[in-house]
């Protein structure tokens, strides 16, 4: 038997149907086409003359009307109407996205901009291996701890910081220009514990540490270890440099800012003048 689609009139009719079927969802269009093709395959006799085929196609109906019927009997929207509708739908979606995106951005920006600094709960000195020379002295209700500054020993500060805000804060580095020792060659190292000291059985010196940058999630506590080695030693006559905060570069959302991390106490570091011969540094 000859395939229905071999007849020129049938082919034209199906081509017109295909153009109309674009108005239907794909799965429905495929189903309707399959049914009408099967119908034609059964009712168009092989080698039927064009007149007979034309009559059969007329009985089957106009493709546009059949598709209209599939759409529910209402005439489909014109191409221009459909383009306009699509444009409006697209514009509405873009507008909704822009509004939603702007709202989220504003809310986040507000949260990031108003997030409090990292909060200090403990601070202490990292001894350079000579803590037996640690001396406490009392003056009124003030206690002063005196710790020797040692050449060629790693010394510095330990600070427990907690992120009390609702957003993650990433410690990037010490702020530019921060030095532990004034006017002597040294490199300050910033490390951050990878564990929460409140949830660990280890002492803050024995926690595992990593280098910055390191994210501190909301509610987490981490220990900052800020240390340095110098070849110099202090002089009793050299005066001192005092600080009660450590400036850190911290990223909060899309803002990077300097947070002055409180030390809870005043630390006074003696100025150094007497350095070893290998790294002699001219005195002032």
């Amino acid at each position, binding site marked *: 038997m000859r395939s229905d689609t071999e007849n020129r009139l049938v082919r034209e009719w199906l081509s017109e149907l295909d153009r109309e079927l674009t108005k239907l969802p794909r799965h*429905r269009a495929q*189903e*309707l086409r*399959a*049914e*009408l093709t*099967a*119908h034609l*395959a*059964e*009712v168009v006799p092989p080698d039927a003359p064009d007149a007979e085929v034309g009559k059969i196609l*007329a*009985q*089957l*109906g*106009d493709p546009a*009307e*059949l*598709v209209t*019927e*599939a759409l*529910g*009997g209402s005439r489909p929207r014109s191409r221009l109407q459909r383009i306009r509708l699509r444009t409006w739908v697209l514009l509405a979606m873009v507008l909704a996205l822009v509004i939603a995106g702007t709202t989220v951005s504003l809310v986040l920006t507000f949260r990031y901009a108003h997030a409090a600094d990292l909060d200090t709960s403990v601070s202490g000195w990292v001894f350079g291996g000579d803590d037996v020379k640690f001396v406490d002295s009392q003056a009124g209700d003030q206690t002063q701890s005196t710790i020797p500054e040692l050449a060629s020993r790693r010394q510095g500060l330990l600070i427990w910081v907690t992120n009390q805000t609702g957003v993650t804060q990433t410690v990037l580095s010490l702020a530019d220009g921060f030095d532990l020792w004034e006017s002597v060659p040294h490199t300050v190292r910033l490390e951050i514990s990878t564990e929460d000291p409140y949830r660990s059985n280890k002492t803050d010196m024995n926690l595992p540490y990593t280098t910055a940058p390191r994210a501190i999630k909301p509610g987490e506590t981490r220990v900052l270890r800020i240390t340095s080695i110098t070849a110099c030693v202090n002089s009793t006559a050299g005066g001192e440099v005092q600080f009660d905060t450590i400036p850190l570069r911290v990223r909060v959302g899309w803002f990077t800012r300097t947070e002055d991390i409180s030390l809870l106490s005043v630390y006074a570091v003696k100025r150094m003048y007497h350095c070893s011969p290998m790294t002699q540094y001219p005195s002032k």
Partner: protein
Amino acid sequence: MSRMASDGAALTELRRGVLGPCVLALLAERPRFGLEIVRELAEQGGLLTSEGTVYPLLNRMREQGLVTSKWRDEEGERPRRYYAVTAGGRRHVEKFRADWLQFTKSVDSVLQLEG
């Protein structure tokens, strides 16, 4: 087949309204394939605007969950999509039967009064 070239718009709308329930009524008897439905409705005369009308109607009713369909490939026959009425379709046709009785009764009554 009796396609009337001079169908009035009202009759076309009337056909459109009753064709769905008629197809559901046929399917409520037993599952049928598309061409079978076309032929049975055509035999009744006056129900179809065109033979093809049945296919978009079936397509729409399947989308509405009134009928289901599946292909059957029986020996010696072409593969055909058979349609069956769903429970929802059955309820639909039952309701139409009741409405139709009331409707035709009212129309008959009015027409007799006017005649």
